[in-house]
């Protein structure tokens, strides 16, 4: 599989990219810092013991980088079967409430610009006759919740967009995989208190790769979060107002 990967330098993206490389998938890495990308590329090459991994600059805050970056990936890989997006911005609700500019930036990166990137990816995949678009949304988008009012709103929008893509383009060959990670112990959540069922990046990577292979449209990772969110989605508002979750 030939994969363009936005966000492979950190967290769950790093774990997923390593898993893909270890089974022989060919990767091309997109991200903000060329120096950091090069280090991750060397890591994937050494772990997989395979050929070289290419990189190109791509920043979710600079939409003009999207098309050239995907073009570079497609040219270098001589094809494109899958685009993965794990990149995004995170901040706590307290930090976002205190700083409206930060909130606006987060909404722009996690919704508008991520969708714009996916539009470029969608067009390239469909032009080749189809492929897989795997995007990391979040369980935070399942319900309006006190600790993730703003982050959750952006992820809810992203989830809906991915659902729409799946309905409209699956018949044309585009397989959309919307990943909804629960709490996963990464640098993004460092310093937050892990709830029960907190996951590890390697476990998430295995679940996501299986979903990519099968074309599962929605996947919770770790899987337990499907049931946690089933309960949360069905709680009455009166309860949601009282609990802190």
């Amino acid at each position, binding site marked *: 599989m030939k994969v363009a990967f936005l966000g492979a*330098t*950190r*967290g769950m993206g*790093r774990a997923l990219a390593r898993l893909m490389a270890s089974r022989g998938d060919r990767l091309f890495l997109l991200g903000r810092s060329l120096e950091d990308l090069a*280090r*991750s590329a*060397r*890591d994937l090459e*050494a*772990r997989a*013991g395979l050929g070289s991994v290419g990189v190109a600059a791509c920043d979710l805050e600079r939409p003009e980088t999207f098309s050239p970056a995907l073009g570079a990936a497609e040219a270098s890989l001589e094809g494109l079967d899958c685009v993965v997006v794990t990149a995004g911005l995170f901040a706590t609700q307290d930090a976002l409430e205190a700083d409206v500019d930060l909130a606006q930036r987060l909404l722009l990166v996690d919704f508008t610009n991520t969708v714009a990137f996916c539009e470029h990816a969608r067009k390239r995949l469909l032009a080749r006759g189809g492929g897989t678009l795997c995007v990391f949304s979040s369980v935070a988008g399942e319900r309006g919740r006190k600790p993730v009012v703003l982050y959750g709103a952006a992820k809810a929008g992203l989830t809906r967009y991915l659902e729409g893509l799946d309905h409209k383009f699956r018949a044309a060959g585009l397989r959309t995989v919307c990943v909804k990670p629960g709490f996963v112990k*990464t*640098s993004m959540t*460092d*310093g937050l208190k892990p709830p029960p069922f907190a996951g590890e990046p390697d476990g998430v990577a295995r679940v996501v790769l299986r979903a990519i292979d099968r074309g599962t449209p929605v996947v919770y990772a770790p899987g337990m979060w499907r049931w946690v969110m089933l309960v949360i989605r069905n709680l009455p508002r009166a309860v949601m107002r009282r609990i802190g979750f």
Partner: protein
Amino acid sequence: MPLPGREIRSEDYESVTRGAALSRGLGRSYGDSSLPARPEDRVASSVLADRILGFDPATGVLHAEAGLSMQVINRLFLPRGFYSPITPGTQIITLGGMVAADVHGKNHHRDGTFGAHVRRLRLRVADGRVLWCSPTEERDLFRATIGGMGLTGHVLEVECVLARAASPWLWAESERIHDIDRFIEALKASAREWPHTMGWIDCLSRGRLMGRGILHRGRWAEPHEAPGRVPTPLRRPALPFVLPGFALNRFSVTAFNTLLYSSHVPRVKRGIRHPEAFFHPLDAIGHWNRMYGPRGFTQYQCVLPDSAGHGAAGRFLELLTAKGGASMLCVIKDCGAEGIGLLSFPRPGISIALDIPIRDGTQALVDALNELVIAEGGRVYLAKDLFTRGEHFRAMEPRLPEWLRIKRQWDPEGRLRSAQSVRLLGGEP
């Protein structure tokens, strides 16, 4: 027990080390060497900085970020014919931690400590600069950093040489031996022929049976002896909860030790072993520390030099049993030559490592053991130490003034410190 302070985890470990008092890897040191001296001291965790930056299959040279674990190295590179150059009891340790403690393993008598296999280190020193050191560039800094417990700088990247394995399996022998003098003789005799040796001894048995135990020795199997497949990583069950403090007592430990010793039949066993089972027995059960109850345990590891003469290990065991130190696992190993690290632990002699459950009398027990070790001319291993007093440490470390001179040159304000360094060397806590 709530720990003072909190470690900061980031893939961008290099930035986090700016202004940090200490770095910490996977936290397998038994004492307070990876804990901050004050709650407000910043501790940088290296575990997310685990990228491999280069590997040359022609030479075995590996260049990686400091948080890469030995377990990942071994699992990735054993199928390609390489293994960690030294093999401590656990492989859930980082490259940075291996440098800081200058760890050793079953092949110390032949291959020395990890420092002997390090080519270069990339360090952030106390004034914030990032630089490389090696046996030829900034040699003093390099010697003070190998085994320097992270007190000379944050280890950011390590370049080391992996060892070649003839096959991915071990050919191993184990032998039951019934007293300490014969044990040490057999250990030294095995060392001449075998690259990997170590022993487990029953340190509760007294009199004629004192120091009875099981000696392990091994070498990489030749391709024609080994199974054709690559060993799959071992699954490890974990102890799911903390056992009550009374679970380990004189009687249960005696029963365990007796069972372990007497069930080793025939006297000598031979065969092919899985490398993880042979090299890293501590990883067989996850969270095994929970066995020691809510107060936990400490380790005590010392080396008794060859200059102490015949019988030093026997005198140590006599003192231990007289003081009632109930140790479940007592590991014995003959050490080879001293390495390049100025505070590196091993030196030619016999090393003994014990688990000591923490009780009210643990400080007095460690003091008594340390006094004997000083009298025999030996020293203790800082990666395992929680109770040694500053004056005892100074008495067993004639190399300390030289190390302190280099430490002061690179860190005149004492910015890099741990709970252990303040306990042993003084300084503002």
